[in-house]
């Protein structure tokens, strides 16, 4: 019999070892990744995890955390634990949608603007810089107030304020890559502009995206939470952490702490997950910062 040198189990163990963190900061990325993964799983399997229907009255009003309702009930007698589980769906879907929209527009416009240059570039850069310098949340508040509630509208409002982040990064990279030898070589052998942009420049640009994306997602979670805290997110019965936090805020003075504490905690945990992941990737990809 042929000896199996590389058994699958050994392979998996060695793979696991290679991704195992060795330094303190690499643990950041791992912890962040675990947090995000568990919240995504929570969102996907929400109906199986949540003990109750999140938008139906299932118990008394404002019941303290107890055996039946482990995190208590809210002002309408709904189970807070179930609402939190389903709230992950809102948070994850809007965040991902917003990140994907801003990523696609930002990267595409950045590529074009940087490559084409001239007046086209100046106008786009100026507009993007203007949006970038403006306090993002305030722009998002006005946009979502004008667009109205809903998953897509909220995602668009958030995406608008993060598009410049990708645009600026990509444009900067394109400007330097445009002059590099391999692009000149491609041009010399008669490659079309479209080929140069998408086959030569794009792959070199896209590798810098993950860090920005992760930190951006953290911001997007906070912006979404802020919008729904202000009642500008999704329409009412949808479980939404920011909205629930606001609803719970009203009962604060009567020492009723559970309807606000738990949804807010989820916002902080998800944001922390993305920030830790971003920080971790940053450290791993740019070791010179580590020293």
């Amino acid at each position, binding site marked *: 019999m042929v000896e199996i040198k590389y058994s699958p189990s050994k392979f998996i163990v060695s793979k696991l070892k290679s991704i195992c963190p060795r330094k*303190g*900061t690499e643990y*950041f990325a791992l912890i962040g990744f675990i947090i995000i993964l568990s919240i995504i799983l929570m969102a996907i399997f929400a109906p199986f995890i949540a003990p109750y229907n999140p938008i139906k009255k299932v118990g008394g009003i404002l019941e303290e955390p107890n055996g039946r309702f482990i995190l208590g009930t809210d002002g309408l007698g709904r189970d807070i634990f179930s609402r939190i589980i389903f709230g992950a769906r809102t948070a994850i879907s809007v965040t991902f949608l917003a990140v994907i929209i801003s990523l696609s527009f930002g990267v595409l416009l950045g590529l074009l603007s940087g490559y084409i240059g001239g007046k086209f570039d100046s106008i786009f850069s*100026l*507009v993007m*810089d*203007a*949006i970038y*310098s*403006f*306090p*993002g*949340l*305030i*722009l998002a*508040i*006005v*946009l979502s*107030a*004008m*667009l*109205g509630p809903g998953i897509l509208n909220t995602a668009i409002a958030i995406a608008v304020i993060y598009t410049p982040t990708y645009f600026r990064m990509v444009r900067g990279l394109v400007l330097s890559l445009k002059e590099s030898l391999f692009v000149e070589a491609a041009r010399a052998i008669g490659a079309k502009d479209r080929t140069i942009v998408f086959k030569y420049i794009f792959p070199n640009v896209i590798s810098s995206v993950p860090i920005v994306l992760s930190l951006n997602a*953290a911001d997007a979670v*906070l912006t979404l*939470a*802020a919008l729904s*805290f*202000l*009642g*500008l997110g999704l329409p009412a019965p949808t479980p939404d952490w*920011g909205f629930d*936090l*606001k609803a*719970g*805020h009203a009962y*604060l*003075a009567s*020492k009723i*702490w559970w309807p*606000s*504490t738990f949804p*807010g*905690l989820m*916002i*902080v945990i998800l*944001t*922390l997950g*993305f*920030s*830790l992941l971003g*920080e971790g990737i940053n450290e791993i990809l740019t070791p010179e910062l580590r020293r």
Partner: protein
Amino acid sequence: MASLKVYIVRRVLLAIPMIFILLSIVFLIMRVAGDPVSAILGGHAPQEQIEQIKQQLGLNKPIIFQFFGYIGQLLRGNLGRSLIWGQRPVVNEIWDHFPATLELSISAFLISIIIGIFTGTVAATHRNRFLDHTFRLYGIITYGLFIPWIGIMLQLLFGVYLGLLPIGGRIGTLMEPKSITGLYVLDSLLTLNFDSLVSAIKHLILPSVTLGVYLSGIYTRLTRTHLMETLEKDFIKAARARGLSERAVIYKHGLKNAFIPILTMMGLQFALLLVGAVLTEITFSWPGMGTLLFERITYRDFTTVQGIIVFFALIVVTVNLLVDIIYAYIDPRIRY
């Protein structure tokens, strides 16, 4: 210093297209992204009422006329009149609410700098040791904190359970000091009204700690990175070689030189301060610009919302301009 003057003039001229573009974006959002008439009246208003609002807002003219009309009014400092409550001029509404925001921002800013520079210095001088990791984690965590949640937790602890501090508002009822600057703490000091002073400070503590802690993480990280960089420079080695105490090396030579980049980054974080202030105000019913914006969006007071956004845009551009000029003044290498 002639080149500095040239730089300033150029920088001011560059700010003009920026303001113009920001104003156009605001205009676009308010007119194109949504329909102000249905935003004001809701979907099912009678036709004559729709016409009346359109007339009042000048919405029956072609869009390009509307745009230049709007820019023209702005140049004359006219932001229009509020659509609700006695139709006060928007400029007056803004000036009534701005001092509250300013007071909150200043105190939160001071708190964040003090915490940030202290923790950043400790982290930089304990590189890769326990305290360094702790404060780096502090930097990451605070940045991810959701302001309303932090505020609510502080309200619960210090307001509801311990009963030490008020959980909302800016000052006790009927305790407002005579208005000089509009900043209650300063005004009550100037008029020697100590009851008001105590009340104003008590109301100020929780909101400014909330906002201050949120912002401090950024300064922790900035101070840490820049101080670490500075501490590796030759003049630090020279200072150590001269036998200066470690304390003097870090504080007198290191921190002082690391401070310039930290200072400019503070200017760049200004937009974050405004965003944070808006959320803090709404959480603490602090009667500033954020609360005004939120309230008027709820009441669909379209002209006031537009005015507030224009005001924010002007502030942001002005602050960025000032920071650039200060930086050019400090560092003579920066010229166009």
